[in-house]
């Protein structure tokens, strides 16, 4: 049983439908969530965080349904995105101080450790930081309450290759510590280095949810990279 179980997730918008998305997240494993822009990755992530309301499906964390246990579950999960920054004009120290007050499981030692690891200055506000540092800023808050599940929506978008490499190293370190990581991206090369599982979505439909090895075994031709596999599958779908 995974630490998170998503079953038959559906969400209907006037111009887009997410259909029957199911996958598990497991402790100490990194799940790469791939698909083109607009495939439904962010909708899926927002649905499993209850930021949008699924039309159908079941979302369970730690064996508990999300609905009815939201506050308790959110103490144990962390979320970060490369696209949104909170309180751009507030000092990181002030945002952390408020965030800390909501988490009884806040780990001050971990906060100090990640602060040093990410080379973040508490006196700076997000508006003074580069895109890569903003992502780390979000990650710092998500990680400092000992999140057992980390949900990351395109955290490497807009980052330079070196920063992306740094981040994937951090994900590997978290994996070693037993954290389950869901990492959405359309930059599949980031997943070559760190992903254990692949969840592949196209136009709101699940194409695959398996280990990287099984995914490669099923779709790969002569040792293709994940990017080559995805490009081929997308082209095949377009001309089908």
């Amino acid at each position, binding site marked *: 049983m995974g630490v998170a179980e998503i079953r038959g997730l559906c969400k209907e918008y006037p111009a887009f439908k997410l259909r029957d998305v199911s996958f598990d997240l497991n402790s100490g494993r990194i799940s790469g969530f791939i698909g083109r822009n607009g495939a439904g990755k962010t909708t899926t992530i927002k649905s499993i965080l209850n930021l949008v309301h699924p039309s159908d499906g079941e979302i369970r964390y730690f064996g508990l349904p999300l609905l009815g246990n939201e506050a308790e579950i959110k103490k144990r999960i962390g979320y970060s995105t490369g696209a949104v920054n*909170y*309180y*751009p004009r507030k000092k990181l120290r002030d945002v952390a101080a408020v965030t800390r007050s*909501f988490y009884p499981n806040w780990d001050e030692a971990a906060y100090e450790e990640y602060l040093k690891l990410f080379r973040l200055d508490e006196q700076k506000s997000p508006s003074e930081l580069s895109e890569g540092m903003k992502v780390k800023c979000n990650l710092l808050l998500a990680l400092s309450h000992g999140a057992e599940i980390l949900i990351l929506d395109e955290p490497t978008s807009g980052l330079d290759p070196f920063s992306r490499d740094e981040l994937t190293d951090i994900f590997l370190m978290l994996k070693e510590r037993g954290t389950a990581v869901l990492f959405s991206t359309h930059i599949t090369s980031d997943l070559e280095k760190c992903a254990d599982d692949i969840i592949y979505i196209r136009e709101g439909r699940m194409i695959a949810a398996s280990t990287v090895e099984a995914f490669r075994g099923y779709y790969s031709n002569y040792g293709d990279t994940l990017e080559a596999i995805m490009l081929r599958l997308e082209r095949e779908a377009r001309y089908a």
Partner: protein
Amino acid sequence: MLKLLNKEIKLSASKLSFLFIAFAALTMAPGYPILLGAFFISFGLFQSFQHAREANDIVYSALLPISKADVVKSKYVFCVFIELLGFLLMAALTLVRMTLLKDAAVYRENVLMNANLVFLGFALLIFGIFNSVFIGGFFKTAYYFGKPFIFFIVTAFIAVCAGEAIHHVPGLEAVNSFGFEVLPLQAAVLISGAVIYAALTILSMRASIKSFEKIDL
């Protein structure tokens, strides 16, 4: 709830919300529509909603380990906190005008509303309108606040005009009494204002909690 209020004060609020409490001092302005003090304090609160939207405050709050209802409650608690601070300042200044300055010529010759308990009742009505019309309107989308703010301006303007002019209606001169004259009437209007304020705020908060539960962020 204290944690939520702390979050609102430290992260979400605009400094203008606190600075605009000073508009309560309009209570002392002679020949001025003093009810506008409550309107300007509400305008300061509007600045916090603008500030919060720019800072992605609603999404940040929704991701905290709290219920969605608490996200809504935190906004109401903050607004009530600022409104009551403004009201207390207005009340203190009103008492000064009702006692030490009750015979001051500059206030006696005022054609607009006098600072008395009736004024305080109307001030609470304006705060209640803000909570009901503006905050309630905002939480229909948790994003757009243009229309709710225009509706608030129109409704509050009508309430200010009514409050400032009501004593010119034949038979209602007593609402503009000085000092503690006609105290039962003054107290009745103040109590009515307080009841309306509480009712508008509570009903609006309940409706906002329902709306916010349905919104996709």
